[in-house]
Structures are given as C-alpha cells and as structure tokens.
C-alpha cells in the first residue's frame, strides 16, 4: 500500500530531514508517527501525497512508483489521499462550506450529492453552524476541524493527519479520534503524526518513531515512548 525504500530527503537549504528510511504500511492500518519536533514526521507524510519528492530512494503508493508518476496524474493520487495539514491550508476567501465542497467539486460530484455530503461531515466535526463563515472568522481548533472535514469528505483510501489534535481541547480531540477510528474501521488507512502521549497510549495502534530522519522504533500496539 505505502512502501518506502531507502528514502533520503535533503532540502535545498542543505537540511537532511530523512535519512535512509524504510517503511511498509498496509491498506487499512492505523499508524501513529511520533518523534521530537524537527524529527522529519511532516517530511515523511509529505512524500505520500507527493508534496515533496525523495532526494534518493523510492516511494510506492498502491504499487505506483511516485518518482515516475506523470505530473498530470498527481491530482488523481491526491484525491485518494485526504490530508489534514499541520497548518490547515484552508482557502481564505472561501466559506467553510465552499472549502469542504471544493474537494468534491474536483471529482465532479453532482451538486446535490455535494450538499448532502458536506452537511454530513460538517455535522461530524460539529461545525454545522459555521458553514457560512470564512476561515479567518474561526478559532484555531475550528479551522483544524474544517481541515479534517475536507480531508475525509471524498472517502479517500488514505487519510494523513499531521497533528490533527494539536489545537483541540480534550473533548473535541476524543471526538475526532472516534471519527478516525470509524473511518479506519471501514477500511481507510490512517497515518497520524502526533505529539499526544495520551492518545497514543489510550487508543493503541502501530507506532513508528522517527528521530533525526530515521525510524528508531516500529511496533504494533506501541507506546508513545517520550516524556511530555
């Protein structure tokens, strides 16, 4: 499903973010990515939806080698990968409703289906009453939930969550985790970079720990493993 072989990533400023990384994740898995800040977690997940390309090594998604994937095919890869960005990446001039609908417009859903599905996910993330607001009018946690809604709205095969609970209060965090477990139960692969010890240690899943661009630990039903 997701396969990385000897991946190195050196950014143009000379920083090496990933260092000989090997990983294999199956369809339907739920994986936490943990590690200190700057360890390379975001870089790792960015390789999956090809926001970044490896400097050397290869990345396969569903047996497709991303290094040979044609530029015009990239949008179709990204439709299969819903991403909750660490910095949300909402379109500032669009309303919350329009932001979420955008992910369905690109796959040319019918307007009726779009309306129904967008209201459904808005309900799921508890933002039905904010549908007409623009991102700037929302709190950090609310924006994060919009990002979550947009990521899952088109039923992607893989959901990538880069610190999806970073701005949320504990109650909302658990609510979001329940949503993730639900879509995971229906077969969606979930990859979640997180600093939340409580979540990792409570909802036990596979844990991959990255430090200095290397996988230092990879265990099923693992622990968070760091203090704080």
């Amino acid at each position: 499903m997701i396969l990385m072989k000897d991946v190195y990533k050196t950014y143009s400023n000379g920083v090496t973010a990933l260092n000989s990384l090997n990983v294999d994740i199956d369809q339907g898995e739920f994986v936490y990515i943990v590690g200190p800040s700057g360890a390379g977690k975001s870089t790792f997940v960015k390789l999956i939806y090809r926001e970044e390309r490896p400097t050397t090594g290869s990345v396969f998604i569903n047996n497709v080698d991303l290094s040979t994937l044609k530029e015009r095919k990239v949008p179709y890869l990204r439709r299969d990968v819903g991403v909750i960005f660490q910095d949300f990446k909402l379109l500032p001039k669009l309303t919350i409703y329009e932001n979420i609908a955008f992910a369905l417009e690109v796959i040319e859903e019918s307007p009726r289906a779009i309306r129904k599905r967008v209201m459904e996910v808005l309900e799921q993330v508890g933002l039905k009453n904010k549908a007409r607001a623009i991102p700037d009018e929302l709190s950090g946690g609310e924006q994060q939930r919009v990002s979550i809604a947009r990521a899952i709205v088109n039923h992607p095969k893989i959901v990538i969550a880069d610190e999806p609970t970073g701005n949320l209060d504990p109650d909302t965090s658990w609510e979001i985790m329940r949503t993730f477990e639900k879509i995971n139960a229906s077969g969606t692969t979930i990859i979640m970079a997180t600093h939340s010890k409580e979540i990792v240690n409570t909802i036990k899943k596979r844990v991959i720990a990255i430090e200095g661009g290397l996988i230092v630990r990879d265990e099923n039903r693992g622990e968070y493993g760091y203090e704080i």
Partner: protein
Amino acid sequence: MLGTRIGESMAMKFRTMTRHIREGFKNIARNGWMTVASIAAVTTTLILVGAFLALMLNLNQMANKVEEDVKINTLIDRTADPDVITELGKEIKDINGIDSVVFSSNDEELEKLINSMGDDGKSWELFEQDNPLNHVYIIRAQNPEDTMKIAEKVEKLDGVQEVNYGEDVVQRLFEFNKYARNIGLVLIIGLVFTAIFLISNTIKITIMARSREIGIMKLVGATNGFIRWPFFVEGLLLGVIGSIIPIGVVLGGYDYLEKVVSGQNKYAFVDILPFNPFAWQLSLIILAIGALIGTWGSVMSIRKFLKV
C-alpha cells in the same frame, strides 16, 4: 448503455463548466479592490484604443475616398479617325489592372465643363460651334495605386495625345497615405500589446496574491485545467466589464462628433464615417479586444503558478 455513459459524462462536463463560470463570477466579488484595479487598467487602455481606432479608421476612409477619385484623362489625338479610337479603347481595356474605361466625346466634355463652371460657363457656350476640346477616355484603375503605371502604358499607345492625372499630387498623396496607414497600424498594435502587458501585469499581481491558494487547490487534488477555468472566466469578465465605459465613451463621443461635423459640412469637405453602423462596429471591436486581453492576460499570468 454506451449512450447513457456518454450522456452522464456530458452532464458532468456541463455541471463542472457551470461550476467554473459560477466561481469566475464569485472571484470577481471575492477579490475586491484587485478586481477594481484590473478593470481600471482595461478601461483606460480601451478608451485609448477606441479613440485611436476611431481616428485611424476615419482617416483611412478619407484617404480611400480621395484615392478613388483618382482617374486618368486620356486625351485622344484630334486627327484620329473612329477606327483608331475604337482600337485604342480595346487596347486600354487589355492593360492589367483596369477597372473601367469610359469614352467621352468632346461635346460631352464641353458640357461637363460648362456645367461645372456654373454661371461663368455661359461664356464657354461660344465654343459649341467650334469645340477646342479632345475626345477622351476616362480610365480608373482597380487599385488606385497603379494609376501611374497604367498612365505610362497608355501614353505610349497609338492615337493618344496626352494623359492627365495630376501627377505630382497623386504621387505624393499615395506616399503619404501609405506612410500614414503603416504608422497607424504600428501604433495600434503597439497600443494593444501595451494594454495586454499592463493587464497581464495587474492580473499577475492579483494571482501572485493567490499563488498560495493555487498551491492549496493542487494539494487537494485539483487539476491545472480545473484551476485555470475560473481564472479564464474571471479574466473574460474583467475584460468585458472593463469595456463598458470605453464603449459608452465611444458611442457618446462619436455621436457628438458626428453632430459637430455634420453641422459644418456645408463648408468643409470632411466626411466622417456614419454613426450607424460605424460606432456599433467600433464598440464590438472594443468589446472583443477587452475580452481578448482579459482572458489572455489571466491565462498567461497563471501559467507559471500552476507548476506547483
């Protein structure tokens, strides 16, 4: 089976197109003062282009009229007998580029002369008994610029006494017209390119501000075409909206100009193109140029941001 599938995909294309058009309209509203700036740029340049086009096309029209009036008067030898005259007429017709050859006898010539002189012409009536004028062939060239070449050829034919076409004036007129047209053309092309440059720059600034948004759209799985269409619609709209005021100026201004000119027409021989249809045609041209520079500007400026 296949039919329904094609039907479905057509419906899909149609509703996506509807979506792009809707987004294009919404972007006009979403982008606030950037929209205003772009429209202002289009408006200014189109007013310039419109005024200049009106001037150019009228000058061109006047030049054409003057040129069309150019004709060659071939004075026929007074001693030539009718056979020679008929033969000469045939020979002239055989020259390349002749539009028309009309025979006019010396009596007809005298009558024209007398008529053109008005009251003073009376004194010429004396000559009706003993006409001093020649029979003539009046020649018009298909292409007025060939007048000189044709005149030279005609002069050499048998039975020709003299050819007459206002040599100096005609030559200078043609040269002047040629330069005027070329310079005008260059100016118009230059103006349109300046306009495109100006507008694509304005739009580039607005898109620069939106490059982050374009990046986000791509990360959410939008294809380049999907992103480009609303921009295209937006550019088209900017161009069309930007041409409203210039069209108003052209219609109003030309109407006024025509009134002023026709008020003086008794004295002057200036004759401008009639408001209907000229002002309407010009409006259409302005609209077309506006739409063109709007879409072209937006398509050109978005290109590099799509390589995210």
